[in-house]
């Protein structure tokens, strides 16, 4: 009962600001609405007992990516972006596509019998994640550093003024 209530509240905390993110005509408000969405998703992770991912979600999404997005809004259109038209001519088409996709996905998800396994998650999941990264997924781990390097170099080259 309590679990269901918590799940409903967190879903609403995730989805309602997400609606604002995609529909608000004020770009800064849309960007700030990302924060409750990300925090709601954090709550969902916690309910799924993925504590470490939840912490990272707050740190990276709410603390870093949102800040980056806000910076770019301030640096490009600033508040003038508040008064320009934000939606293009594809609104009906886009809405139709989104609703259709949602319908298809929900039908598929409810119809499929997922092979659920009753097991317990490792209680201290930072240790489990660390072990996984340093043993089974070590290649992903090392490639990630190269991806980070490439995106750092690429973004600096693109963003820097040529002079």
């Amino acid at each position, binding site marked *: 009962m309590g679990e269901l209530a918590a799940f409903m509240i967190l879903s609403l905390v995730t989805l309602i600001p997400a609606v604002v993110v995609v529909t608000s005509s004020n770009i800064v408000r849309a960007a700030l609405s990302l924060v409750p969405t990300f925090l709601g998703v954090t*709550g969902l992770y*916690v*309910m799924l*007992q993925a*504590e*470490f991912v*939840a912490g*990272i979600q707050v*740190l*990276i999404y709410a*603390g*870093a*990516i949102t*800040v*980056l997005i806000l*910076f*770019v809004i*301030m*640096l*490009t*259109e*600033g*508040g*003038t972006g*508040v008064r320009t038209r934000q939606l293009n001519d594809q609104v009906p088409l886009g809405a139709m596509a989104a609703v259709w996709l949602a319908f298809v996905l929900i039908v598929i998800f409810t119809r499929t019998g997922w092979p659920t396994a009753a097991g317990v998650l490792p*209680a201290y999941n*930072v*240790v489990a*994640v*660390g*072990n996984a*990264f*340093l*043993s089974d997924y*070590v290649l992903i*781990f*090392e490639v*990630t*550093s*190269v991806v*980070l*390097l490439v*995106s*750092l*170099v690429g*973004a*600096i080259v693109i*963003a*820097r*003024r040529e002079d």
Partner: protein
Amino acid sequence: MPKVLLDWFYVAVFAVVGTLMAVLPLVVVWLLAPRADLPQKTITYESGVIPFGQAWAQFNVRYYLFALVFVVFDVEVIYLYPWAVVFRQLGAFAFAEMLLFLLVLLVGLAYAWRKGALEWV
């Protein structure tokens, strides 16, 4: 209830109660404080001069470069957390893996340094 859920249940309650207690003084102010609507009062402060132009102006790209380097290194740090917890059980191999990981990123830092992305001119 598993410990994880109970822990974060407390966090959620703290967030809600904290918000209420932070809003409470605002309500008290709304009840207590005087209100007088003078047009001059809502003018933003600009050292006593009537504000001109658009306050929501554009800023320098330098701010963006710092935010960029920050995001990349913040992501790097999230991989250090699980490593820091387990590396002593896994021994020298885990240390070597992290050394490689960090060396690649130090190349990135050196590049950013060299290209002047860390420079505030």
